[in-house]
């Protein structure tokens, strides 16, 4: 299992190379890419802000959940932060398992949970100079328990 928050470019092939085993008949790679438009506006690039320490913990937690769905620990997820131009990869998720159904389900779990609860924010920079934080999802508290040393 591998989870990371990075500032450098993501090489999807390297993420995929982190999973796979002789017993696996299915390997799946998902990449999220910065696109050139959103809701009718032309986008020139995006900036991701993050609560880095927490984001890494949450990403590991999400990968753990996905591993239970997958039935193997062969899962790698990398999210990039900072300034990204159109066409760059913002997130890569690789999983492998003996059969494809679990792989698709686990990969989907990771991206959906990232959108719901990973403490990362995206600002779109539009062609023409305007910029705006993307309206996101409000995460919900799961319990009243708090980690204290």
């Amino acid at each position: 299992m591998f989870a990371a928050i990075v500032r450098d470019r993501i090489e999807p092939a390297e993420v995929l190379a982190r999973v796979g085993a002789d017993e696996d008949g299915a390997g799946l790679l998902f990449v999220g890419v910065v696109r050139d438009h959103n809701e009718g506006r032309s986008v020139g690039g995006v900036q991701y802000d993050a609560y880095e320490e927490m984001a890494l913990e949450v990403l590991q937690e999400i990968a753990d959940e996905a591993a239970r769905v997958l039935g193997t620990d062969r899962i790698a997820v990398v999210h990039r932060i900072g300034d990204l131009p159109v066409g760059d990869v913002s997130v890569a998720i690789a999983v492998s398992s003996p059969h494809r159904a679990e792989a698709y389900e686990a990969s989907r779990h990771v991206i959906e949970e990232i959108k719901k609860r990973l403490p990362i924010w995206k600002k779109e920079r539009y062609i023409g100079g305007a910029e705006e934080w993307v309206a996101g999802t409000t995460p919900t508290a799961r319990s009243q328990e708090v980690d204290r040393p």
Partner: protein
Amino acid sequence: MRPILPPESPRSVEIRTLFFASYRELLGTRELSLDLPEGTTVSDLVSTLRARGGAFTVLPTDPAVAVNRSYADAAVLLRDGDEVALIPPVAGG
């Protein structure tokens, strides 16, 4: 003769408060250290921030909050040294 005692000072907790993305830009800061009375909850902390006036009044009354890097309910009691982050709606991926 009664012994002379120093006046009892109410105990306080020191909370490190973090702001990100739109909240950081709105407030013009990423971090504030606050001394709050013992017994302060997450919800009290948010009220205290909003009561500072100015840009702070634009903060939601019930924002998502993480205490020590875990999402926490508004009723959670804060302890000395806690790190509280106000979390705007997230947009990763």
